[in-house]
């Protein structure tokens, strides 16, 4: 083979592999991507039952009910709408009423979100990214969730921080944590 032919073989082979990869990526993009919604968006968009998506929001205080054999139900709220969620399994350590949560699953015909995975996926500001963004959009965001306290702003600020940590820092959590079945 001449130099040119060899080069063509290699280039042709590379292009073939890249084409296969591109096909795989496009195919996977079509089938395996999950969209994120908040309860208000669910109501707005009329997501049909059986379609898989991620639901994010705050666990409504007082809504958590534990049933038999690890079955739990709770409501997810985003300030303007709530959605009932049912789940069977162990909730992650970071799951708490009033805190952010992301659940993955499908809506059943009666309008209950059946979650098969509950993520308490937080960063150190204790708020799942998607939830924080959604809350901000709707104006339910308190600025001190994400802000870093400025200790040198004055003696007052520093001592307040020491006695009662601002909400932002309560229980910093790992980058990921979840429970799934």
């Amino acid at each position: 083979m001449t130099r040119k032919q060899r080069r063509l073989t290699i280039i042709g082979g590379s292009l073939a592999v890249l084409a296969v990869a591109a096909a795989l990526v496009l195919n996977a993009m079509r089938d395996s991507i999950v969209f994120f919604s908040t309860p208000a968006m669910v109501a707005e968009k009329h997501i049909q039952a059986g379609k898989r998506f991620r639901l994010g929001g705050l666990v409504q205080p007082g809504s958590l009910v534990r049933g038999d054999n690890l079955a739990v139900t709770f409501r997810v709220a985003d300030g303007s709408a709530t959605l009932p969620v049912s789940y069977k399994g162990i909730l992650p350590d970071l799951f708490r009423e009033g805190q952010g949560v992301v659940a993955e699953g499908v809506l059943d015909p009666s309008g209950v979100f059946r979650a098969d995975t509950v993520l308490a996926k937080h960063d150190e500001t204790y708020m799942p990214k998607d939830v924080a963004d959604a809350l901000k959009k709707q104006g339910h965001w308190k600025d001190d969730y994400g802000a870093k306290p400025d200790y040198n702003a004055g003696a007052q600020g520093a001592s307040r921080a020491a006695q009662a940590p601002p909400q932002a820092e309560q229980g910093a959590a790992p980058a990921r944590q979840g429970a799934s079945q």
Partner: protein
Amino acid sequence: MIAESGHYALVLALGLTLIQSTLPVLGARWRDPTLMNVARSTALAQLLFVAFSFAALVTLHVTSDFSVVNVFENSHSLKPLIYKVTGVWGNHEGSMLLWVLILALFGGLVAAFGNNLPLSLRAHVLAVQAWIASAFYLFILITSNPFLRIANPPIEGRDLNPVLQDIGLAVHPPMLYLGYVGFSISFSFAVAALLEGRIDAAWARWVRPWTLMAWIFLTLGIAMGSYWAYYELGWGGWWFWDPVENASLMPWLAGTALLHSAVVMEKRNALKVWTILLSILAFSLSLLGTFLVRSGVLTSVHAFATDPTRGVFILLILCIFIGGSLTLYAWRAPALKQGGLFAPISREGALVLNNLFLTTACTTVFIGTLYPLALEVLTGDKISVGAPFFNLTFAPLFVPLMVAVPFGPLLAWKRGDLLGAAQRLTAAGVASLIAVAVLWAWTRGGSAFAPLAIGLAIFVIAGALSDLAERTGLFRVPSATAMRRARGLPRSTWGTVFAHAGVGVALIGIVCETTWNSEYIGTMKPDDIAKVAGYELKLDGLTQRQGPNFREMLAQFTVSLDGKRLSAMAPSKRNFTTRGSSTTEAALLTLGASQLYISLGDATADGAIAVRIYHKPLVLLIWFGPILMAFGGVLSLSDRRLRVGAPKPAKAMRGLQAAE
């Protein structure tokens, strides 16, 4: 005082890097050995200063000086000493300081052991290192100073995130950083080669040990991180395709490709331009990983926009270094001389195939990681790209790669004999077919996927062993001769065998764990018995205990098999009062390479507790594989040929050597 001197040392280190970034380059231009030698002394001095600065931060943490913000936020006086030390890099500021410390360490190593390098190459390499270092010193000093004081010091600290209070934090981040930052050396060598406009096989021989070292650490770091997540997060997952993990996987894939292409360059003086590009890409992906993890862009695109200093600064570093090096590459690479010829079917051809698949797989990970971010910035739609995406893209690309792995070492350089190689792999092929048939029969026609995947893994392992048998003439010559030949084989050959076999071993673990994992999830009361995979686990009772900075509830389990008591297991749930958060400490029982895994959920009012019990068959192979790979890397590193001091400079560089 300690904090201020640590801060001051960091400023001095920045000053030194500014000298190191400029004078040696000018020296190389003017052919002035004195100026070029400045690089060596400044690199060593810079290492000294940043080490002092790091030691200062460690001291502050160990002595619990809560007048420093970083210590106050991440430490507690009751925290065990080891976590006071590891807590230094359990936060943003401290981990960036560790990053630059390791960068300076690698620079110092090149300065100390690079005496055999041509003077101008060493000057250029160290100057490029200094460019990177000065950018990151500026980043730390301007946006992430770990030595900030609080005006009114509090009495007690906020404690470290409980999940991080684990021995994993002592090992995982330093290992990972040694890998990430280690690729800066190959990057610097690549940029230096482009600046000098000259590159040859000797260059590859200088670069390879550094790349190999970084690769070994990165391999171990990723494996360690995976095991840590497995036992600490309490639900038995070992890989999540989380962007943070992908950020470490991408440099690993590019680095693996680089290792292989550097072999071609070293042996055959071919693929030079490609090797340079891979060196640039491997470190660019490390920088990208640092950006993804450190800028907060993963937490929220909006958080990134509202507190832009850190994110924008790292993005700027990213653009300057990746953009700059790629521009330099586009400008200078065409001028580099083309190397040797080879047929598509040859050792070189096999290594090109390896590179092709590794870089393509790396690209799919890149797309899966960054597409959601790009989409959110462009359209505002939020999507999550999880395991299904990667299973559909990454896995199919790895299959042909795995099939090709055993062929590579059996092909000759320049022009190989595919049929001959296939003949020599007959035994491996037969072994793998037998494995498939046996597994298929054993699972009685279950999913065909698992037996086939394990067959592939067996093929890779047996293929690596056949290569060894082929080289030593095992079964063909008397065994004493074979033993002698085995001892005479270069260490790098042994390294290849171990590393390739490690890939197969890890694959077996992955397939077994995902296919035959059995679990029990439910509530248990004392004296209840759960049955998982034939094992009987009896909950004996619940006890409370006080730890140094937490309270924990222990559940005592007795494990028995066929009525015979095997062992006891005690998973626990820890409550950390300072942060008001809890962690789950899973209990693991190792049975051969398999593990029983118990983690606890919440206790219910009537004295029962939620438990999650898994039996994970051959799960340990998942991490044993990477350890084998890293061991192969170490063997290869200890090869005489690759010792840092061994290579001789090429003829063309003699002229510059004389100036010394």
